[in-house]
């Protein structure tokens, strides 16, 4: 291994989201600008002022898991296992016994098993329960998906969970990338999962006043970069990718979706909710530096693009600062306009979209764009997918709390023979 580390590639993709429960339907819906936002169905949302979310539709846990297994799986772990299953199947990877210590799992989550925890709290506070189910802790803990996936696939290498709000899964994937690059693992399942659509979480977000209120027309509620944007829509889901050391992937004849070659991480260190320009801009510069790429080699930016008035202006400013003149040529889109803001899972779900865009040369649009905002004056690929050759792309994740993580992926350059 040289000083610059080993090359790392993405050989498996898995996604479980409101816009698709596997990658093909997920990406088809994105490029056709189909929204996954609907009226909330997991509970009666009538008391809420915002009654919509990007929920995974028609989800029945017993279609996927045995009842006994479900006793131990909160919804966020179920989603993670389903996305991991797709990532493993798409990779064709068969892990040999002796390779297990070199196989890791890194999964991010912002809220963990909040559904299990809330129902437990309700039983304690409202019903006076004196004890809770003994599985409460193993279901609620943030590392439950990491542990369950690790057991499912016999991954005995470096494994942990990350929790940095909206950047959780970008940090997880970045950490996995570095584990392989610097030789601590050869394969890592990495991504995120979050299922925060509960009455209490919705109430909490209502108070922050960042949710779009689109009860009358859920599908068009989230309008990133558009002048009439009102905020984000709460989402849920999981995205998991298999990262693999390049030589190993090549030897086994794996299908390589893309190379992951950059991670930029910074902290704003300014304000707990308001984003800065400096922090995210430094994160993008760092990821380009690690990937040894010039800004004008990046053809697509999957934006953090929450659709809040503040984020989208700030992110536009960030892109202009880093990319200069190229900012006007690079394709930028927010797929959150369709799959909502899946919190700790969103970075991974967006990286799946980014990798598929790169692989197919199709940029998914920013849906629901109606009219330009003078402060957001770049090419956001409004409403219609664009076919264009893409060499490299970045995926932005800027968390509440000012913690930024930017991932850089590129089409695999063929080796000199």
């Amino acid at each position, binding site marked *: 291994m040289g000083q610059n580390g080993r090359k790392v590639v993405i050989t498996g993709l898995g996604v479980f989201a409101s816009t698709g429960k596997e990658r093909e339907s997920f990406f088809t819906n994105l490029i056709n600008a189909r929204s996954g936002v609907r009226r909330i169905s997991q509970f009666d949302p009538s008391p809420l002022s915002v009654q919509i979310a990007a929920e995974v539709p028609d989800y029945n846990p017993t279609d996927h898991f*045995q*009842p*006994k297994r479900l*006793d131990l799986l909160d919804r966020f772990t179920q989603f993670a296992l389903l996305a991991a299953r797709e990532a493993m199947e798409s990779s064709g990877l068969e892990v040999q016994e002796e390779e297990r210590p070199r196989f890791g799992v890194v999964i991010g989550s912002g809220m963990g098993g909040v559904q299990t925890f809330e129902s437990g709290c309700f039983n304690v506070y409202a019903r006076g329960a004196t*004890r809770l*189910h*003994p*599985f409460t802790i*193993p279901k609620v803990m943030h590392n439950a998906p990491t542990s369950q996936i690790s057991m499912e696939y016999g991954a005995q290498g470096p494994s942990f969970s990350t929790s940095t709000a909206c950047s959780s899964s970008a940090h997880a994937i970045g950490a996995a990338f570095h584990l392989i690059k610097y030789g601590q693992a050869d394969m890592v399942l990495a991504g995120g999962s979050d299922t925060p659509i509960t009455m209490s979480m919705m109430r909490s977000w209502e108070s922050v006043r960042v949710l779009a209120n689109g009860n009358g027309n859920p599908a068009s509620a989230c309008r990133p970069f558009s002048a009439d944007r009102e905020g984000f829509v709460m989402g849920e889901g999981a995205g998991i990718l298999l990262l693999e050391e390049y030589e190993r992937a090549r030897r086994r004849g794996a299908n390589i979706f893309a190379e992951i070659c950059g991670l930029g991480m910074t902290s704003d260190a300014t304000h707990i909710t308001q984003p800065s320009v400096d922090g995210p801009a430094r994160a993008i510069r760092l990821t380009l530096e690690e990937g040894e790429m010039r800004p004008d080699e990046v053809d697509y930016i999957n934006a953090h693009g929450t659709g809040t008035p503040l984020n989208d202006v700030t992110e536009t400013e960030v892109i202009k600062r880093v990319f200069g003149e190229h900012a006007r040529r690079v394709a930028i889109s927010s797929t959150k306009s369709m799959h909502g803001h899946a919190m700790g899972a969103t970075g991974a779900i967006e990286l799946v979209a980014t990798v598929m865009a790169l692989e197919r040369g199709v940029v998914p649009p920013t849906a629901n764009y109606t009219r330009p905002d003078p402060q957001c004056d770049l090419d956001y690929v409004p409403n219609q997918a664009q076919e264009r050759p893409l060499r490299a792309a970045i995926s932005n994740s800027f968390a509440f709390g000012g913690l930024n993580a930017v991932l850089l992926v590129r089409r695999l350059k063929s080796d000199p023979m």
Partner: protein
Amino acid sequence: MDVAAKVVEVITREQHLPPGTVTLNSTFSELGIDSLEGVNILFALEEEFKIDIPDAVAQNMKSVTQVVDGLTRVLEGKDISDLVAIAKGSTPAASH
């Protein structure tokens, strides 16, 4: 009340086992019941029988026969000092 039949029913339900799997001769280890699942069964039995099962009795429940025996003694208010003595020499159900 048929304590044994109720115990078999509760264990079968909580472990999602096919009917007929749990018999009076089954041990927890044969049924694949780990320590946390054992706690869950204990809670379910307390609800079912509307009683508190003392720790000393609970710690000696490693088979269906032991569960039925322990429960019967608690329900009938019998002496459990032998179980207390055994429990004192035993280890906690869960680590970490």
